[in-house]
């Protein structure tokens, strides 16, 4: 399995998904080797890790993040160019070069690892998958977590689009994280529908025991409501709709604070928008939070709103639901295909979102009903289910690829 990032050295959902998926696959008996482009001190014990570049080891997550997250969408402007060029001095000059450096090492990884399936995640790893397949002739599964259209809207990077398309074409099977992503692969990349399957992501159950941060608890004690926005602050997450909604909510429920966790290329414009509307004293920008800090904010919120314009899956609402917090998600998100004990709106319907958020803030019973049934429901969305689907998919590819020596079913070795 070729990945690009892995927690705790991750910039977003892709790493989280790879962690959950690899853990569940291993637990179901799959013999899995996970490849990364760079060396990091990973502690995950359920699978073996190999690194394309063994020479330099990153020790702190800041370094890794600058290396792996140089790309959010090609219109991004605010990543640290200086640091990137420093690192890339030894690792390749651009993100694109790093992607192909990774691909160049792929045959050597494939030669050293016994495997019957090659499974790759998003365009950053597709060239590596294609090279590995050229070498070992094993079936290639390309997993699509987000397409270039999800990241950049209509204004796409053509090179990345071509890499994605090539990955889909060379794949024996494509796995999309939602029905809407599958549709996009078929329609925008003109891929044979029979080759594209949906496997929804799962979520890891961890009871969120974190206590609410003191400053937020203080606001709550004074009778304030907390509405949460979390995730990258980029065009696809709909931060502008969130701000419009906040303004309307405040005209009904003035004792409300809006907590923003995350960073991204629209962070500055979001802050400007907030101050232009005169709402600065009602917004708390926390920056990029992770781990316990993030979980604590989940718990603090009265409701989490995800007004994503485009969200291939969206694992965050599931994590928030595990923290007993109600969620409002856009109907344009893939995760809305798998949850029903939540509120849903169209991302552009600011009035509908306002109505729903105010109802949750005003009605304790609605709040408790959503948090109780939501938590119960999210417990049924586990990675084991996703792993089972993937395994039967591997099996079907194995069937049609009988040239290789006999490997007992379920006993996969995956590079």
């Amino acid at each position: 399995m070729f990945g690009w990032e892995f927690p705790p050295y991750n910039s977003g959902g892709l790493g989280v998904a790879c962690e959950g998926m690899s853990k569940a696959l291993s637990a179901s008996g799959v013999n899995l080797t996970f490849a990364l482009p760079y060396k990091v001190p990973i502690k995950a014990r359920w699978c073996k890790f190999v690194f394309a570049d063994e020479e330099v080891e990153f020790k702190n997550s800041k370094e890794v993040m600058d290396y792996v997250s140089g790309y959010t969408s090609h219109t991004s402007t605010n990543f640290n160019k200086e640091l990137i060029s420093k690192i890339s001095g030894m690792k390749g000059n651009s993100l694109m070069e790093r992607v192909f450096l990774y691909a160049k090492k792929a045959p050597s990884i494939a030669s050293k690892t016994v495997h019957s399936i090659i499974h790759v995640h998003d365009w950053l790893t597709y060239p590596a998958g294609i090279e590995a397949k050229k070498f070992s002739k094993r079936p290639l599964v390309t997993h699509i977590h987000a397409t270039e259209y999800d990241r950049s809207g209509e204004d796409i990077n053509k090179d990345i689009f071509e890499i994605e398309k090539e990955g889909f074409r060379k794949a024996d099977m494509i796995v999309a994280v939602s029905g809407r992503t599958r549709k996009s692969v078929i329609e925008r990349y003109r891929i044979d529908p029979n080759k594209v399957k949906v496997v929804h992501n799962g979520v890891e159950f961890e009871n969120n025991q974190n206590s609410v941060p003191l400053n937020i608890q203080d606001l709550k004690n004074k009778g304030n409501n907390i509405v949460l926005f979390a995730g990258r602050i980029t065009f696809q997450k709909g931060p502008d709709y969130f701000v419009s909604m906040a303004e309307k909510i405040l005209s009904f429920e003035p004792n409300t604070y809006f907590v923003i966790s995350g960073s991204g290329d629209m962070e500055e414009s979001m802050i400007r928008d907030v101050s232009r509307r005169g709402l600065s004293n009602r917004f708390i920008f926390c920056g990029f939070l992770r781990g316990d800090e993030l979980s604590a904010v989940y718990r603090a919120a009265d409701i989490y709103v995800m007004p994503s314009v485009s969200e291939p899956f969206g694992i965050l609402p599931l994590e928030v639901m595990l923290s007993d917090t109600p969620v409002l998600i856009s109907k344009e998100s893939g995760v809305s295909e798998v949850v029903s004990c939540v509120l849903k709106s169209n991302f552009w319907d600011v009035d509908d979102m306002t109505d729903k958020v105010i109802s949750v803030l005003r009605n304790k019973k609605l709040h408790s009903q959503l948090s109780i049934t939501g938590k119960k429901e999210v417990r049924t969305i586990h990675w084991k289910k996703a792993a089972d689907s993937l395994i039967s998919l591997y099996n079907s590819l194995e069937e049609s690829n009988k040239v290789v020596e006999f490997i007992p079913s379920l006993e996969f070795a995956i590079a």
Partner: protein
Amino acid sequence: MSSVCFYFQVHQPMRIKKYRVFDVGQNSDYFGDNSGTSLDNKFIVEKVANKCYLPANRVMLENIKRNPNFKVSYSISGIALEQFEKFYPEVVDSFRELVNTGNVEILSETYYHSLASIYSREEFEHQVKMHRRKVRDLFGVTPTVFRNTELIYNNEIARVVEEMGYKGILAEGADHILGWRSPTFIYKPTGTQNIKALLKHYKLSDDIAFRFSERSWAEWPLTAPKFADWVSAHNGNGQVINLFMDYETFGEHQWEDTGIFEFLRHLPETILANPDNDFVTVSEAVDRYDFMGEIDVPYHTSWADMERDLSAWASNDIQREALDTVYSMEKDIAYIDDPVLQEDWRKLQTSDHFYYMCTKFWADGDVHKYFSPYESPYEAFIAYMNVMHDMRLRLENVKKKQEHEVSLHKMNPLRFSEV
């Protein structure tokens, strides 16, 4: 001798439109959706009338003309009758034509198809009286048998209904009420004197209402002769076979292309072909047969869902919150002089509003989802509570106005002698 007793429920709620927080205090039009979707009451009434009420009534009328011994009973909620009068008067005419044959009986129920029997005796009696008056005005008959919303029943309700002068009451023939006993006899409710309970034969009723078009069912396709055989099999060990179901079964739940109307058309003569069978209305069943035993039902039962209890309307926190809110207004609403506000309050008591908020099996996509015009139980609750918010504002305004008037009256009128 086995008598077949058909009772059909006719009901359409006034569904609440997408009433948002922005509407509160701005407009009090709660039911006026005109989007042409499942929230548009006029649209729904027209659709169901064309698919079910009008064609089914035609079949019933033909059946009666061909078989003078064919009889049926209906209960039609007041809120449905009101909507027929407003949106589709031909539906009222067509029911009137049926009643005029003398073979069709109309039952009593609460005007607003409400849960008042559980929450307020006073309100319950008020709505039953309203419904009696409506039935008398439209059809010129006075019901003598009562059926409560969704067949909600217990000893206490039977006792109240007897006190109100009814000679019969309908209930679900649930296994936990009957045990080993058969629903094909008449029973005496515990704690009553003379009122008789008719119990739904849920197996045979559901064969038509739910399983008719179920292709995976071993008995599919269900034909009139097959069903008549099942009825005749009760001869010698049963008196009355109570087939109680939603009238919307014909054409709306079971579409015309399933053959449901053909089945209905052939059923009377096929059943009557056996000289030991006949048809009765509910009051005829009550008059003809005597008690076979007593049924003791201390807890509420109903015909809804597998549980046959109140859980379809009152099993989660949001349902109970909505119910508490609407019934907590009673003590104020009863004493104000604002008929429009009172009417809106009663329309908000219709059981369907709470049914839409049910979260039992919500995640699994159950029958509540099929019947709900809302995208989720939460949306139903949000619209309902926004309406309640507006209702409270109106109530406060009226109360203030009345207090103001009362204080005006309290001032001693000026007398000429004092001037």
